[in-house]
């Protein structure tokens, strides 16, 4: 596999060089370059070091593996493909993503999955292995967000104000979530057998990637959160 040393390279040169390489590629010595692999499709890219903000923005089918932490706005508006982060992820991960998958081994910052959306067969998926910061799934309009809380014990697995403005999609949170305050326009209930079957289909690949035992992860209650209606804010200001 071709490898590019990107130490001190600016983000434009980096992406130019990446586009010139055919097939899979490893980036070595990454430190903060933004927009890596923006809009790219049909290839695997491995990143060693810290990728900068907006990693995989508008991603269109490429598979990105990050062996460290990632910064803010990973997968901004991505359409297809996969971003696998072996560490933690910064704020606003999956901002307005409309397809593809983001798998995070560690924790996510604030506003993970903000304004995720879905259309027909395009159903984005984000799985957070650790815990998530405040405003998880803010304005979520579609897609699936899963938080497993595997790295925290006896601590809330999401921060304050989850699902603020959520009006579509679905969220699975591992545990009974009795200590979490959800807004009025969503319903949080314990996952039933149907929900758990659905969950299994999402978690299969995640467990394989990070070496988790699926049964062990499923050996816990899950809370499912969905909005009450497709348009919960219709009468927020006036009755119409």
């Amino acid at each position, binding site marked *: 596999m071709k490898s590019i040393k990107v130490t*001190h390279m*600016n*983000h434009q040169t980096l992406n130019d060089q990446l586009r010139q390489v055919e097939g899979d590629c490893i980036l070595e010595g990454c*430190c*903060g*370059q*933004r927009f890596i692999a923006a809009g790219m499709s049909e290839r695997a890219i491995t990143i060693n*070091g*810290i990728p*900068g*903000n907006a990693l995989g923005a508008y991603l269109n089918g490429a598979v990105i593996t990050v062996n460290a*932490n990632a*910064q*803010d706005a990973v997968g901004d508006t991505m359409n297809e493909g996969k971003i696998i982060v072996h560490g*933690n992820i*910064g*704020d606003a991960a999956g901002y307005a993503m409309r397809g593809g998958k983001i798998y995070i081994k560690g924790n996510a*910052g*604030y506003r993970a999955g903000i304004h995720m959306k879905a259309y027909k067969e395009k159903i984005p998926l984000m799985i957070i292995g650790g815990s998530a*910061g*405040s*405003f998880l799934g803010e304005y979520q309009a579609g897609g699936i967000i899963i938080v497993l809380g595997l790295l925290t014990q006896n601590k809330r697995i999401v*921060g*304050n104000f989850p699902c603020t403005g959520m009006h579509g999609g679905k969220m699975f949170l591992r545990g009974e979530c009795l200590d979490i*305050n959800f807004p009025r326009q969503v319903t949080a209930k314990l996952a039933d057998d149907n929900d758990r079957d659905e969950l299994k289909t999402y978690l299969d690949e995640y467990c394989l990637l990070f070496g988790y035992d699926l049964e062990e992860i499923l050996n816990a209650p899950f809370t499912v959160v969905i909005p009450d209606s497709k348009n919960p804010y219709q009468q927020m200001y006036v009755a119409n």
Partner: protein
Amino acid sequence: MKIEGQIRIPSGCAIAAVISKDGKRFSGEMITNAMKPMHDRSNGLGGGFASYGIYPDYQEFYALHLFFDERATRKNCEVFLKERFEIVKSEIIPTRKIPAITDEPIIWRYFVAPLKSMLASMQLDEKEFVAQTVMKINTEMKGAYVFSSGKNMGTFKAVGFPEDVSRFYQLEEYEGYSWTAHGRYPTNTPGWWGGAHPFTLLDYSIVHNGEISSYDANRRFIEMFGYKCSLQTDTEVVTYILDYLIRVQGLTLQEAASVIAAPFWSTIEGKTSAEERQKLLYLRTIFSSLLITGPFSIILGFEDGLMALNDRLKLRSMVIGEKDDKVFIASEEAAIRAMAPDAENIWAPAGGEAVIISIKDGAY
């Protein structure tokens, strides 16, 4: 040319800091490296650094750093300073001529001690006297700006990218135990030298990434207490607010943080400790005009430590890490890796969660 205040500039910006908890001094090279991977967060219209521990030979004296528009302004200002201070040393701040930094003002520093007779006649303590003098120069003396006024610390700022500003001021020649840095991204008007960060008063310095929506409300309140917002950039008011809360009102850093990034009413209600609930309620009520709204991540520098704080909604990024005796703070993890590739315990504080790093007692 219009400056900020005449035209409003929302900023993007990058911030970073590094401190040795053991009080060990190190050059400005490390903090300069932090700003390189964050280059694109600035646009070359402002960069600056604050450093603590750089003037050990003059640590008893206030180090005043000043910009002057012309020689006559400097002469006038020196006459004024001599009426108020004993000046033990005055000199041009050494700079390096580089193409990236142009149109510099006249830049001087003065190591001074307030005249005892002045303190007695004005019935002021030293710090209040120095603070009032800074306000007086910045508002009344056209073309003169005090941009640094603490003891054994100094601010260095200019119009340019932060890494160039560092080369301009030869920061590799200075050794401090604590450094903060800022790269600016004003988007609507030209930046100017006085508008670059850090904003300092006495030994408090602030670097800020964000935009303060409550600026005018905050300004109107703080100006009742003798402060004058003369640099007309939103960040300036944060420095004065913290000086007022900590030095004048005697609040702890944590309490000051609970004023400017007060928790939401619902968060306060949810506190299990009645004592904590009451305290937060008290602070939010008494100092309601000092609540800072809008996005911010700030680093406050002071004599023996740093405080990092995000707005309570956490609309800006901030990451913290450590290695051996050093603690690192930056807008991006990449900046921390540029200072210490093997930094450990990287984490992001929550919105409104003050992170206070103190130097061990007497270690500096």
